[in-house]
């Protein structure tokens, strides 16, 4: 086995072109290898010490989050908490304090699990993924990233360098909530993220998006009927969102939950995510993570 430590993005790209696989926090890669799910790659390049990948930069166009930024950084970053709150809701739920310190947003996305917590928030926040290889740099919509469990459109030699989040419209809010049976070391049985933008005057809906975690082979978006736009965010609308989410879900039955239960719960989660996104869009203070304030068995 070969292990190299990259100090720059270029070094990492060269190593990957030569066949190395990146390791950031290793909290997916090592665990999968130990469990015998997928053996450790023959050649590994560590990317967690590359300064450019561990930075967060903000300007008027939005935010650029380095791929090696940890969940622990995300959950307390003031700009993420204020403007991209769903992402903070999600990062704050990952594993335990230890997992959040080693686990990165890039690793979460590139691992491509349908149960990843940052995926649905990034989808509703219109995130884009920057992928680099030796010969090109490209950006793709995060909603086009995943093709199946553990599968993405990224080529083996492509390094995720950053996640780009566009500037939020005024009067926007977002939220992410998941079903959990315990408060740490949990995996999303079902989760939902929502983003809501309100019209400049009054509380009528200007834009909404909802995405679901762990109810399909990938993170999926929920089609919200056009008629919702221009309407108040009331119980009726939230009920419709719940129904749309349940209909969109194609869950399985396994040891964690039955498909029937998941289908119901995803509606509950979507409703709560949307209601909280709405509240935050109106300027209400709803604490992060949502799971503790408006979620499961709160507080």
């Amino acid at each position, binding site marked *: 086995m070969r292990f190299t430590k990259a100090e720059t993005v270029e070094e990492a790209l060269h190593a990957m072109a030569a066949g190395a696989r990146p390791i950031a926090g290793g909290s997916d890669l090592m665990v999968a290898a130990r469990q015998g799910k997928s053996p450790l790659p023959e050649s590994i390049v560590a990317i967690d010490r590359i300064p450019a990948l561990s930075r967060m930069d903000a300007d008027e166009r939005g935010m650029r989050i380095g791929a090696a930024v940890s969940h622990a950084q995300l959950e307390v970053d003031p700009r993420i908490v204020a403007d991209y709150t769903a992402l903070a809701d999600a990062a704050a739920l990952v594993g*335990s304090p230890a997992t959040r310190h080693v686990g990165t947003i890039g690793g979460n996305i590139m691992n491509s699990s349908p149960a990843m917590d940052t995926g649905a928030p990034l989808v509703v926040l219109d995130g884009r993924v920057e992928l680099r290889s030796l010969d090109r740099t490209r950006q793709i919509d995060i909603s086009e990233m995943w093709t199946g469990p553990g599968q993405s459109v990224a080529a083996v030699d492509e390094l995720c360098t950053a996640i780009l989040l566009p500037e939020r419209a005024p009067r926007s809010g977002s939220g992410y909530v998941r*079903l959990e049976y*315990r408060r*740490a070391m949990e995996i999303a049985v079902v989760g939902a993220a929502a983003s809501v933008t309100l019209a400049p005057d009054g509380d009528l809906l200007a834009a909404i998006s909802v995405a679901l975690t762990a109810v399909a082979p990938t993170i999926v978006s929920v089609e919200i009927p056009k008629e919702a736009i221009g309407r108040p965010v009331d119980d009726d609308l939230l009920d419709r969102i719940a129904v749309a989410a349940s209909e969109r879900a194609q869950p399985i039955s396994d*040891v964690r939950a039955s498909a029937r239960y998941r289908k119901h719960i995803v509606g*509950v989660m979507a409703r709560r995510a949307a209601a909280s996104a709405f509240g935050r869009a109106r300027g209400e203070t709803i604490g992060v993570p949502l799971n503790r304030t408006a979620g499961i*068995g709160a507080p």
Partner: protein
Amino acid sequence: MVISESRPFLRADGPDKVTGSGRYVADISLTGMAAAKFKYAGMAHGRITKLDLEAARSIPGVYAVLTHKDVPDVRFGAIPDRKLFASDVVRFEGEVVAAVAAIDAATAARAVEAIVVEYEPLPIVDDLEAALDENSPLVHESWADYDADHVVRDRNVASFSSIERGDVEAGMAEADLVVTSRFEADASHAVPIEPRGILAQWEGDRVTIWSSTQVPFQARAGVCETLGLATNKVRIIVPHLGGGFGGKCGFHFEAHVAALARAVRRPVKLVFTREEEFVAPDRRREGMTIDVTSGIRRDGTLVARRGRMLLDNGAYTADADFFPQLAAMHLAGPYKIPNVLIESSLVYTNRQPSGSVRAPTAPQACWALEAHTDELADAVGMDPVAFRRLNAIDSGSVGVVGQTYGEIGLQQCINAAVEEIEYGSDLPPDEAVGVAIGWWPSFPGPSGVYIKIDDDGAGQIITGAQECGTGAVMTIPHIVADELGMQPGDFELIYQDTGAAPYDVGATGSQTLLNNGRAALAGARELARQLKELAAEHLEASTEDIVLQSGEASVVGSPASSVSIVELAAIAADNNLLLAHGSSEVIETPPLVGSTCVGDQGVAAWSAPQFSCHAVRVRLDRDTGVVRVLEVSTAHDSGTIINPLGATGQVEGGVLMGIGQALTEGTRYDEDGRQLNAGLLEYKLQTIADAPTIATRFIEIDTPDAGPHGAKGLAEAPNVATAGAIANAIAKLVGHPIRRLPMTAERVWETL
């Protein structure tokens, strides 16, 4: 109280464990050591038709592959129904078929893969009711040949027990109301944080085995029995133990590893994976089906109870032969009921064997009984706490098996727990408080210590007791020092080594402080006598006038006339040594009076019974069925509390384990009898982030015929009532009991 704020509890093993300098079996390496790995059946029931070891044996680096042919043909277990290796039929997925020793773990794993075993599948017995059918396939075709006259058994029923008192028919006829309930509990696990390790090394005809066991002397007995060795040829040493919770009670794999080490003439080490820790040991908490009917008068008085319990024994009877009677006692409960008939059967299935996990049978049976009790209270329109106050036993009461209880603190426990949680105060609509009471016996037994003080005044306590994390052994130096007017820090412990110390039954049955504490007290008193005699001679006083205090022996009334224990130690080093031993005295089990037990296993009338009441406040998320426990208030009568810090820790840990068993733990099986969640991601233990506020009060009663200074046991009692209290809180919120344990979010939601 031996330990108080002025003399705080110094936990001698604390720094080792906290800093990581402590060593566990997996940390030990010996020169030339080989790695062991087991070949498991991987199927629930089948007849071996082919077992081919050639390919495995021919892998370079494989030193030996052993099967039943390589060890004595011995059956063992509480009912001798098991052998070290399967020879003909495999009866559960974790049954060991072969054992490999190889140069390293990876090679051993490859060899295990290369072992070819073929089976003729046999019908799986995994339904407790169906197993009773006379046409059911048998888990043990030759059950009748097993040598087990101490149990009442028949076909798939490994052990049957009943408790009968009064006339249950007449009692029911006399009742104004009769309420019937049925409950079902899934199996669960002990889940110690350390997956077990075993390392064996032979020197001549003697073997030393380092093992993660809670019961070194029982492990030794198992090795001696299965390999045909005398006890003085086998030495079991436990370095630090990473928890047990009952899962590491009994004799498990020490003999397999010893046999491998003998075959390959090298030290051999086995370290389990987490999955193996879930699947292979014969110490799972048994699943249960519980039917209970009670007759009550309109004023709430209990007049009769009928019960039927089926306990899942799994494929072999590790130590569960007495479980039916213990389970029946928990379905009877600490209540006054004149007419009782409870019948309880331990049923063989093609699942992992069950065994003593912390308070075996109690959490499940208590959960069912206490949910049923709330139904009874509801039926007569009584407050459930008032109902319990009316029917629960008190000092001087006669219980279900006719035992008359001495001074006990159950009623005080109820008062304390409900007071602490402010029972009856207003709560938000999605919150409720549930209350449950429980009991648990103390198990007196033989136990010994040696105590010595060497020439420099430094002491050693050599004890047979095993520390499984409770801190019980760590309390022993305090008990000894207290008698000798010395400091706990003056003593080092030599423990967890059968080659050095006298017998103790091990960290099982909440008995360490109860029994080893008495032995330590006896030993310390003997040593005190030696010190006093020596001091009397030195100070020219009479022995009776010597007091031991603050490291000095002095003459009562003339403190100037004194000699330090260090000086006495130096004198003794040249003469009669300061060398004492202590042994726990026999405590007779109380007799059964006016009741009969078919299949009596001696666990119906209890020595020094412990009592508890848990009150729990929960919040229900109605849309999801997720229940969160917000607050638990507990009150325990475990006699005198010697070590308040340790005791509180036991209660808090027991409560957290109880919450897990109530809500999130529970083993799931596929149709082929295999565990579906044999890992920490899918077997959901509670984490520290889930811990509620826990308040603990002790009702301290200096109890006769109990442990040192009137203490009873305490390690298991806190694990008894929590699930029942949670059940009753949930029932208040959803309008009916959840009849399946664990009461998972989905199960709660299904009933809404």
